[in-house]
């Protein structure tokens, strides 16, 4: 029996070093990305940038006010469309842990979640843009709401499943009908989890560009009309980044900074809600 102990100890130490190196190295992109966004982005941001509309090609200055508002409108629109369906479907799934319909619905949620956002954009185009012969905020909202649905459904289902049975029992024992128990006892208790799911799905769609490329489309000007194209932060970033004008490139960095801050804020708030508002049992 040859003794390989020394070799094995060397392999053990070497492996540990390699793992540590690779893991640390993978942090590099994050640091670089955040660094460049902050450095290039902050330089551009000022009051004019945030409150002015874009100037035409050739003129300097201007801002991304329409993009900021547009993103806000899209968030509101897609939330209105997706939250009711998402929560109710989530309640259904949490009540029915077995059952053919429930399992089919769950499979559909998995498929929806994995569908590429650009494919959803195509569908929203066919459903909303083509019939009205115009790009519109509405179509963008439809596309984004389809993307929010799976996240909200899953969060709702999982939160409600965690609610202990004795909570339901207490309410039912008081003579409260079942559906009221769900609406007035279970749902409010699970609110933090559901809200977290909603916030996370908002964080996800705030940065989405692909489905907006041929739905909301982007707009140089301010637009409050749901049936006309609307600008958004991601779209503006894309448009400016791919342009040949250096000033527009700097604007792209500025808009990126705002977008990253927004997305991170939603994520942090979601986490905060999950922890602070959680009802302990």
């Amino acid at each position, binding site marked *: 029996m040859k003794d390989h102990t020394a070799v094995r100890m060397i392999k053990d130490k070497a492996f540990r070093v390699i793992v540590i190196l690779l893991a640390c190295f993978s942090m590099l992109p994050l640091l670089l*990305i955040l660094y460049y966004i902050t450095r290039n982005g902050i330089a551009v941001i000022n009051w004019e940038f945030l409150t002015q509309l874009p100037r035409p090609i050739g003129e300097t200055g201007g801002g991304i006010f329409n993009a900021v508002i547009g993103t806000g409108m899209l968030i509101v629109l897609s939330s209105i469309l997706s939250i009711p369906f998402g929560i109710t*479907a989530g309640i259904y799934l949490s009540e029915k842990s077995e059952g053919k319909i429930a399992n089919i*619905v769950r499979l559909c949620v998995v498929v929806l979640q*994995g*569908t590429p956002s650009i494919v*959803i*954009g195509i569908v929203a185009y066919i459903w909303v843009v083509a019939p009205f012969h115009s790009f519109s905020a509405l179509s963008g909202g439809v596309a984004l709401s*389809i993307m929010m649905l799976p996240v909200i459904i899953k969060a709702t289902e999982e939160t409600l499943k965690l609610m202990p049975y004795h909570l339901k029992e207490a309410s039912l024992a008081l003579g409260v*009908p079942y559906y009221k128990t769900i609406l007035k006892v279970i749902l409010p208790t699970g609110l933090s989890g559901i809200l977290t799911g909603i916030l996370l799905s908002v964080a996800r769609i705030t940065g989405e560009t692909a489905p907006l490329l041929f739905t909301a489309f982007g707009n140089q000007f301010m637009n409050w009309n749901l049936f006309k194209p609307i600008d958004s932060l991601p779209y503006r970033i894309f448009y400016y980044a791919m342009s040949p004008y250096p000033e527009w490139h700097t604007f792209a960095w500025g808009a990126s900074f705002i*977008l990253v801050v927004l997305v991170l804020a939603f994520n942090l708030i979601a986490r905060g809600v999950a922890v602070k508002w959680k009802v302990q049992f």
Partner: protein
Amino acid sequence: MKSTVDKSERRFNNILLLSALFIVVLLLAILLTLLVASIPAIKTFGFTFFWGTTWDVAGEKFGALPFLLGTLITSFIAIFICIPFSISISIFLGEYFKEGAFPTFLRSSIEVLAGIPSVIYGLWGLFLLMPIVRAIEMQLGVTPHGVGILTSSLILAIMIIPFSASIGRDVVTLVPADLKEAAYSLGATRFEVIKNIIIPYARSGIIAGILLSLGRAIGETMAVTMLIGNSNFIPTSIFSPSNTMASVIANEFAEATGITAASLVYVGLVLFFVTTVVNVIGNYVIKKVALEASKEVT
């Protein structure tokens, strides 16, 4: 009074059922829409679409092979680059350093990275990755596009590392402690325990994680569109500009009409199928792994 309660109860249950069915109907509607809109292209090109090598808008002749290749090559290169890093992170966080300030920092960084929008990765890649690749290409004497398969594969790899690393870490922590103890008690080193016990035990979870990451990579649009060079020809080398299924749609759909539009929807249909298959399989395996792990806790 009981009958009004019953009515409300029934109405409530109906609303729940309708919402659930709405999801199914929605998915079917999406599938149907894609199918119907691509019928003109399916009728004209049929299955030759898949090995047709030219994408000619003017001549209205469409073949999707360049994009199938573009998607396949970029995704596989991305996965290939990503695997050593995400496995290292998984083992780092799941086995070596489970607690502490630095691991928490690493874990948070991964979550932040996973949340950064694709278009921002594209922007960063455009101004920081592209010049580097261009410089490399000039050194090698290749046409310095800067964009192309290599650049987009690199950005894809960076984008899927956080996703696959967090799945990998979850899977590694699920390996039961008593199996690791048994191996240590037989005299194994830590590396041997990882190699012979943890990895084989977590194997299916790791593969599922890779599958799910592959699904992500295939469907990834913005960063790829910005860095792949928008060329509809079959890529000839790793430095060629190209297009993936997702990026050609992003580049051309907004202004497309007629048979062009139908062909693009056809591409979208294929994209939908491929990502669905990969995702469903990956999800199924992950669910099984989680189920087995919960049974171990006795």
